[in-house]
């Protein structure tokens, strides 16, 4: 994945590979500029110049998404994969009622009568926790949380097997976030779809995902089952992230976060892209790109330490990881 920019091409996503099983929730975590949203856009091929896919493959139930015609893509989006974005609640059409917008989405893909579509819309709203009587409300008449629920209802309209959710609750208050996440989880249990869940909030992911991939500077640096990643993070970046979230429980400890700043993607660091911020950096790591390797079943990490039989051991504490002071 590459973006053409005034300052030269930016490789926003580089050699990222992962799979999502049926009914699975795969979390993609990373900071701004890590490429996590670009991955989502590439999966459903909604990237337009200056962005381009320079290589790689996307397969959905065996079909090659990158080779699909425009007509096939139209069906693929919504019917096979739907998306909910962070600002989605602002992407509702302000001059259409939410009911009409859902009806539109249904009728664009299925031959059903207006009445049937409307009934389904009311049902979908009920499923996401909006009273059916709100079906003729305009977006501005709803709170942010309700608008986001309406977007989720729209995404569910065609009962797709995969939902991509990019920071679906980031703009919302934490209580509303929790309610919506619970609702999504219930729906997933009932309807059995898979989710690619993208967020910067690792603590939310650990609660919610089956597996988690950690992205840094356009690359996946670690991939593991959620619980395993939380109990046993291997990459120094993941360990640093764990040391970036204060907790409301347990004893209060000093947390350090990660020194330095995320890299400029026009000129990403050579070798291991995390090396400028890594407490374990060596000269060699600045030259050689580490490969993603499986260190235990299902647990992958791209870090030179593990290739050399060493490991990162930023001290584990009750509520995170401690590092030396900056």
């Amino acid at each position, binding site marked *: 994945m590459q973006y053409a920019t005034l300052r030269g091409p930016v490789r926003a996503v580089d050699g990222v590979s992962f799979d999502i099983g049926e009914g699975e929730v795969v979390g993609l975590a990373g*900071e*701004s500029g890590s490429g996590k949203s670009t991955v989502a856009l590439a999966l459903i091929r909604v990237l337009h110049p200056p962005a381009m896919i320079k290589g790689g493959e996307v397969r959905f139930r065996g079909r090659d998404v990158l080779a699909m015609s425009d007509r096939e893509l139209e069906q693929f989006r919504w019917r096979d994969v739907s998306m909910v974005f962070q600002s989605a609640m602002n992407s509702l059409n302000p001059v259409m009622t939410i009911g009409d917008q859902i009806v539109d989405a249904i009728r664009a893909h299925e031959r059903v009568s207006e009445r049937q579509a409307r009934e389904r819309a009311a049902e979908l709203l009920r499923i996401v926790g909006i009273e059916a009587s709100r079906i003729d409300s305009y977006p501005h008449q709803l*709170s942010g*949380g*309700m608008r986001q629920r309406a977007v989720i209802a729209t995404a569910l309209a065609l009962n797709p097997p995969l939902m991509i959710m990019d920071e679906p609750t980031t703009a919302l*208050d*934490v*209580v*509303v*976030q*929790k*309610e919506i996440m*619970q609702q999504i*989880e219930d729906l997933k249990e009932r309807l059995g779809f898979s989710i690619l869940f993208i967020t*910067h*909030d*690792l*603590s*939310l992911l*650990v*609660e919610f995902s089956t597996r988690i991939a950690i992205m840094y500077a356009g690359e996946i640096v670690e991939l593991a089952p*959620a*619980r395993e990643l*939380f109990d046993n993070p291997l990459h120094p*970046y993941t360990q*640093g*992230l764990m*040391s*970036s*979230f*204060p*907790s*409301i*429980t*347990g004893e*209060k400890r*000093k*947390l*350090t*976060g*990660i*020194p330095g*700043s*995320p890299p400029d993607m026009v000129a990403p660091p050579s070798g291991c892209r995390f090396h400028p911020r890594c407490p374990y950096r060596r000269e060699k790591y600045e030259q050689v790109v580490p490969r993603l390797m499986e260190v235990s079943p299902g647990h992958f990490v791209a870090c030179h330490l593990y290739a050399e039989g060493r490991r990162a051991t930023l001290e584990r504490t*009750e*509520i995170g990881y401690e590092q030396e002071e*900056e």
Partner: protein
Amino acid sequence: MEKPVEGNGTVLDVRHLTKRFPVGGLFSSKKVHAVEDVSFRISRGQVVSLVGESGSGKSTTARLISRLIEPTSGEIFFKGRDVLRAEPRGASRQYRREVQMVFQDPFGSLNPVHTIGHHISRPLKIHRRAPNRRELQERVLELLNTVGLNPPEEFANKYPHQLSGGQRQRVAFARALAVDPELMLADEPVSMLDVSIRMGILNLMERLKEEHSLAYLYITHDIASARYIGDETIVMYAGHMVEGGDSEEIMHHPAHPYTKLLLSAVPNPHAGLVSRKVEDRGEVPSLIDPPPGCPFAARCPHVMDVCRQAMPEVRWVGENHWTRCYLYDGEPQQDAPAG
């Protein structure tokens, strides 16, 4: 004139602060009750966290204290001085020097055409903190060094766009620190930053607090960071303070039903991945001419008739822990809770 209580090292003492904004046009008498009867104290070297969701009135409270806006009623004592009465037509230069503010957006608060050095020397000049050019320059470099922008000579000549978000927020702190403030109002200073650099900024705040015995009001929607940095935490809901006191007490023994709801909603993998169900009904009420009583009554699982009649007074539930809730029958207290 009412005599302020001069606690040991009380910097800020806010009493019954209330702000109502008129809405709905010239002939409408509708009012948004943004901040209702807010009282608290902050001492030297102390951080008080003000936690709440959007619309809770936490930012308005900070803006009232900074006197960017004027309160509808209430009192603000700063180092024992009733500032609203003493400076009725706006804050004095001294007040504006001693009370500094750091905002959420490190991109919007710096002028793109000026160097970092320029940004930091401005307040030094305006408040006459440096007698000559050489000392001005030295002071700028010293401040950059203090906030961890090294080497300072290099950063002084950079422009805002050459800095990352975290570095820009460090500049904002250096600029606020330049004029030797006594009180810092930090309004969501880390919420726009990447997670990996947030702790660095919070730790910087902590260090500045200790080195300069600053008092902080830390405003956030993130109760975990409120705990991390705040000696004390005050929880706001729909313009009202509902609970406050020692941060650890509040995290471990929350009293108010809203605080409990808020804590149960925080994603917390440390709790052992057990999904704790949030039981909630409804959303934050409208702040336009709200009905009397507790603003949480409509959502509260323990609501009683009395809750809809009047907001309860402060009741103490621990040594340094109070709440405003009828569920607790501790002695109602007329005084402002101690900070």
